[in-house]
């Protein structure tokens, strides 16, 4: 049987959703026999591959790099899932939105530190004006709110796709 190609992505989030994904405990063993993890913080791949079946996106779209990534991922993914509140609503990363970016960077990297007072520019992507939910940039097929969404919810979605069921049926949702 051909394995389901699953990718995960970590944009502007805390990695808590990935922790929740791993929190499915022993279920991960049986799931691992049916899926192939092709990209994400949990595996080594450098380039997002073509022809991915399901991509779980953690985090808001917050920088130019996030935006480039998510657009490429959308093109190469059949089912794109916003995993967790940051990807669904913006959540905590979006709390910076009412503050102008330059003012924010100034406060954190210049006023907020005793040494090396400078806004970093080398090797870090420029921030977008706002951190916003994935849905506002690309089409999202399924939203799993929660901070984080329970492990069972995440594994339930993968299981549903494996069995060819609609993943959003009987889904209990809760923000926060």
């Amino acid at each position, binding site marked *: 049987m051909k394995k389901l190609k699953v990718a995960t992505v970590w944009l502007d989030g805390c990695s808590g959703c990935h922790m929740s994904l791993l929190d499915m405990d022993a279920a991960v063993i049986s799931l691992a026999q049916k899926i192939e993890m092709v990209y994400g913080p949990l595996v080594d791949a450098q380039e997002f591959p073509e022809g991915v079946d399901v991509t779980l996106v953690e985090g808001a779209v917050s920088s130019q790099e996030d935006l480039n990534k998510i657009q490429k991922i959308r093109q190469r993914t059949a089912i794109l899932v*916003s995993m967790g*509140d940051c990807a*669904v*609503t*913006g*959540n*905590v990363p*979006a*709390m910076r*939105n*009412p*503050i102008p970016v330059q003012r924010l960077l100034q406060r954190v990297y210049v006023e907020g530190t005793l040494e090396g007072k400078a806004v970093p520019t080398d090797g870090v992507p420029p921030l977008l004006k*706002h951190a*916003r*939910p994935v*849905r*506002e940039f690309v089409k*999202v097929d399924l*939203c*799993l*709110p929660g*901070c984080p969404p329970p492990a069972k919810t995440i594994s339930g979605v993968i299981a549903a796709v494996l069995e060819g069921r609609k993943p*959003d049926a009987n*889904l*209990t*949702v*809760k*923000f*926060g």
Partner: protein
Amino acid sequence: MPNKKLSIRIDGALVDAYEGQTILQAARAGGKYIPTLCDLEGITPVGGCRICMVEVEGIDRVMAACTSPVQEGMSVKTTTPRLTQHRRLTVELLLVERNHTCAVCVSNGHCELQTMATNLGVSTVRLAYNFPKLETDLSHPKYVLDHNRCILCTRCVRVCSELEGAHVWNLTSRGINTRLVADLNGKWGDSKGCTSCGKCVQACPTGALADKGRAVEEMVKQNDRISALAMRRGAEA
């Protein structure tokens, strides 16, 4: 003398109602559930949140159950695809209007807006988030006001005016600029009228009004006690 008894149908079932009751009151007395947000039993309904919209046979537009009086022979539908669409969109509009960051809110897990979203199966919004810059008022020694979480339901305004008799709270401005204000747009802590009774805090459906010093998920409201007090007052009057 009790009011005239009327007979109405709610979702097809015959329900006893009394002249002067609202559709919501008759539904509750008859054991029928209509979702609400701005309503709080015992204080005057205002029909503000539009969650309790119902369909009445023979009338094209949907009506707020909390403010519409019952009429003899009226047939009410509380759950239709059209009403569910309306309710979902209303919750989505509330979610995008201000900054409801459930994950870091004192009322996470005990919030009526959050619960309403869950009950209606709202897993995302179809509109762009507004992300407004809003203030928090920390001037009161016991309580805090966070405008980010306020849905302008006016429960606080009504309990303060109707139950406590202080009328500290009011709304100012209009539309998306509407804000809850203490007295004549002063700091809450400076209000001479505020008795620090905390009824507004208990009545608030979200984390907009909360006890000072509570951490995430720690603010559990007891608005049933507000309703119980209002009922006792009503019985005494």
